[in-house]
């Protein structure tokens, strides 16, 4: 109960602070954010877009871990956990893609420009889509669990390519992107790409990450328990 109230307070604070705190050139009080040249009010998306992208990756990682667990122990509960994680993952992945595209329209001038980060979130979306398509095509429970676990592990093998390698061979626009100068990877010189957050901005940002992560784990535990209960009820109604 205590952590639910804490979560409520954190998310309420993050929503109010992230939307309502003003952005001024020189911050004087604790509730003012500094101006980032070229981004202005657009910078506030970081409090909501980054947690969704983070959670879509966390969900993918959890789905893979429970897939490995399933292949080792052959316990269908692990499959339910992996399924619940992916269900949330695809929701957060769509949210991250849409919020990112809307932000890009205002910051870069177009909704989509095949930045490395956009390419990787698109690949993640495709992987989730393919995973659910695969699951819906198989009738037998054990077979579905095994095949989707194998696919999820194979898909996870491509993650290093998107995270570490794509940004080096494609041009980056996304904040945090790196530039290759004389064959060396360095932080970008543009203020929009390589911007620094000050103390209170970082505080709101990390509170937002923590709040959304707690929210994710809560939703995930409700999700997989409801899947398990549904299966139990199905089995009982068959026996009677």
């Amino acid at each position, binding site marked *: 109960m205590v952590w639910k109230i804490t979560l409520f307070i954190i998310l309420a604070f993050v929503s109010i602070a992230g939307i309502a705190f003003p952005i001024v050139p020189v911050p004087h009080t604790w509730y003012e954010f500094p101006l980032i040249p070229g981004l202005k009010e657009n910078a506030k998306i970081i409090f909501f877009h980054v947690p969704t992208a983070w959670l879509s990756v966390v969900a993918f990682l959890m789905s893979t871990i429970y897939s490995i667990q399933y292949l080792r122990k052959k316990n269908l509960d692990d499959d339910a956990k992996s399924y619940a994680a992916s269900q949330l993952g695809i929701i957060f992945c769509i949210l991250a893609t849409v919020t990112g595209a809307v932000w890009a329209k205002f910051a870069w001038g177009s909704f989509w420009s095949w930045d490395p980060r956009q390419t990787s979130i698109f690949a993640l979306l495709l992987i989730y889509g393919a995973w659910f398509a695969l699951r819906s095509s*198989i009738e037998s429970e054990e077979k579905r669990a095994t095949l989707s676990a194998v696919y999820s592990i*194979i898909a996870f*093998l*491509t993650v290093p390519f998107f995270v570490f*390698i*794509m940004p080096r061979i*494609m041009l980056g626009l996304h904040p945090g992107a790196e530039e290759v100068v004389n064959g060396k990877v360095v932080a970008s010189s543009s203020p929009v790409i390589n911007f620094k957050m000050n103390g209170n901005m970082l505080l709101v940002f990390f509170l937002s990450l923590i709040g959304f992560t707690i929210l994710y784990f809560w939703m995930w535990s409700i999700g997989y328990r409801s899947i398990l209960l549904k299966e139990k009820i199905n089995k009982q109604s068959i026996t009677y």
Partner: protein
Amino acid sequence: MVGKTYALYRKDYHSELRTRYAVNSLAMFIIVAISVILFSIGNEQITQSLTSGLFWVVIFFSAMSGLARAFVSEEERGTSLLLHLIAAPSTIFSGKLLFNLILVFCMNIIIAVLYTALFDAFIIRNFALFAVSFILGNIGLAVASTIIAAIISKAGAKGTLYPVLSFPILLPLILTSVQLTLYSNQGSSFADAKFELAIVLCYDVIMLTGSFMLFDFVWKD
């Protein structure tokens, strides 16, 4: 194991020669795909980067139309149980992989020859670089499509699912290979392309290891 792998390959080769289904449909598919591209281009002058992209579009879709046969045919004819009895999973995977590798190589050599003949912008200026990237790219393509084909065959051979499942897995390989083909068309040296070559090599090794480890789970019901 090597002997059994070769025997499995010979079995696939002979059953393929009897009907020539995969080879014929693949050859026709390549011709159809390339002529569609040529018709849509018309008299336009297209750039080298677009040509190397289109090269991999044809390769991807040809692979998707032909490579699923290896495992799907076993399920269709109901011979997968027999394979269970006579060989270990890794041997079966090696046999199927060998067959698919040879199919991919034949297919892509034909596509490359047709592209050089039909597209003005597709001129291979650094042949050694093209050959190395071509061999590495084909190995990656064959490995990833073979393990996905195994998954598809167990999922009840849903034909439309195959490209859907393969595309996200093949995406890093295709993006890098397009870049490498562009380099070899521009006549860049090996030093310029060493990073991309390393990516494709890593991809091949990771996928080969992952497929051999995971195939046991797919194959045993």
